[in-house]
């Protein structure tokens, strides 16, 4: 454990964002697939729910999650019974909050990619003897790789930049729920502008590098096709 509180906040942030991205890919992929293939009218309802975090103030989501996570409500009680720990103001709480808050950033690019891919190549795979899982890993995944990279990095970056939800349901516990954006807020509140600059600057540069890497990775296959 780093003794420097800002490094500790960085570690917590990376842990939160990494875990959130992993969970989002695991549940976002089947959800996006289901939405892309869905044909009845409930599709728009689910789409609206997935897109809600895009327009909702994070504090609103955080507020309702806080109520749900409290030991007085059913989800909070169930969590406490199974894990023996309180859910609100824990690391698990901010991961669950982040998953919900960043869901559209993962589901939407994947859904679009699956819709664009269509059924024709999957049908071709099926008549060549490939079953559904085979088709997903050997046709869908290689052809939508770029969208998976985009979805994962958007989900990761958005989770790193999160403030409202974490503050509402996580509070500000060092090593547990104190993430970079909250640490930055603390420094500004304490008029410690030098430290605030360091944090804000490194977040800015870090995000730039991450985005540049994404575009670089997405750029490569395109260049290969052209040559």
């Amino acid at each position: 454990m780093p003794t420097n509180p800002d490094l500790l906040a960085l570690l917590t942030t990376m842990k939160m964002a990494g875990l959130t991205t992993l969970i989002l890919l695991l549940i976002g992929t089947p959800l996006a697939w289901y939405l892309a293939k869905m044909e009845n009218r409930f599709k728009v309802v689910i789409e609206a729910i997935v897109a809600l975090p895009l327009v909702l103030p994070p504090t609103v989501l955080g507020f309702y999650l806080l109520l749900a996570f409290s030991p007085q409500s059913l989800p909070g009680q169930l969590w406490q019974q199974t894990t023996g720990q309180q859910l609100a103001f824990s690391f698990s709480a901010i991961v669950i909050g982040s998953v919900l808050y960043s869901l559209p950033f993962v589901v939407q690019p994947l859904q679009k990619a699956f819709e664009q891919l269509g059924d024709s190549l999957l049908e071709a795979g099926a008549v060549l003897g490939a079953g559904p899982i085979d088709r997903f890993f050997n046709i869908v995944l290689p052809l939508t790789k770029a969208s998976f990279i985009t979805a994962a990095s958007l989900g990761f970056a958005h989770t790193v930049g999160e403030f409202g939800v974490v503050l509402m349901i996580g509070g500000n516990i060092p090593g547990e729920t104190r993430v970079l954006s909250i640490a930055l807020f603390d420094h500004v509140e304490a008029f410690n502008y030098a430290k605030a600059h360091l944090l804000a600057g490194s977040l800015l540069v870090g995000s730039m590098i991450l985005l540049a890497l994404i575009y670089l990775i997405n750029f490569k296959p395109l260049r290969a096709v052209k040559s």
Partner: protein
Amino acid sequence: MSTLSIDISCQFGGFLFSLKQDLKLKGITGIYGHSGSGKSTLLRIIAGLNNQATGTINFNDTVLLDTGLQDKKSLPDTNLNSKSKRGTQTFIQPQARNFSLVFQDNRLFPHLNVKENLVFAAKRCAHSKLKISEILKLTELELLAESSVTTLSGGEQQRVALARAILTEPKLLLLDEPLSALDQNSKNVLLKMLINIQKKLDLPMFYVSHSLDELQQIADNILVLSKGEVVDYGDIHQIIHKLNYADTDSDSNQLIMHQQTSLALPLKVNNNQPEENHGLNTLLLNDLQEIHFPAHLIKERSANKQFITTNALNEPVKLRFFILASDISLCLETTNNSSIVNHLHGVISKIDCSDNNVLITIDCAGQRFFANISSYSLDKLSLKVDQAIYMQFKASAVRTFIN
């Protein structure tokens, strides 16, 4: 011989697709109909890509589809029966049917190159008797093996699709208008290749097309569909001859095809020196009568050693061709002082008049020929059924779709 027994119905477009037919899995079976007749839907149902169809499909003794009883009204005890029948419902997934399908659009995997596309198929094939190198050679793709599939021409892409489908070593190869997006030259190449591959691998094929010219060249049997129903099924030449009488398509009110005589006859000599005969080659109609035709129709085929050399069973090499009814003229006596080289002797078996166009059916040593004449000539020659007659046509009236 294998049989595919189909008894299905399926809501399709504005009408009910309803089909009951046993199809022989031998050679190439053409599935013919105009657009919207349900021919592609039938192929998709056979492949397992359409799960809307109800009824049964059996491949020999294997049940591919069985949705239980189709017509609920015919059930005396609906509840009991439908429940017990639900337990017997069968739908074999497309990947387990081992019928490969070549689509109209090639549907190659863009992230894989030519060879990788073929490996994709070969890896998922249970037997793997065929070698990829062998199939690359058969489809003339050896030089393109490492190319990206997106850089190929339409004809090359369709050849890769064909090679890929063959490498799954299917029990039945389904082809859904594989030539429709190609130019005439690519069509020729691919058609010859299909005939060659069919013979070499003894692979039964269903070939969907809206072009009778195409089917005349490659199909052994043909299934004719209209508005989702079977109109006819049988030998290609006989069906084409039947269609001569149904001169307009009831659906579109257009001429289905030009009235014609469709034939496959053995070559008299398998020579490759047609120059000696003034550029003509000869087919045997029977012991006495011959048909002369321009040698270039087979010259090109023997040149790339596809057509002539592939006959593994040592059968006499046959040329498939057609003669348009408008290219045959009739004469009461034979004449030798004519530039027309083909003179055949036969007996009129049918006279069919519509407006001023007359279709005469002539029986010539068991083979039927069809000739169009005007009603003026019919009167002038006072032709009658059972009358002996001479047919005349130029060597160039012997036509093939592949050239």
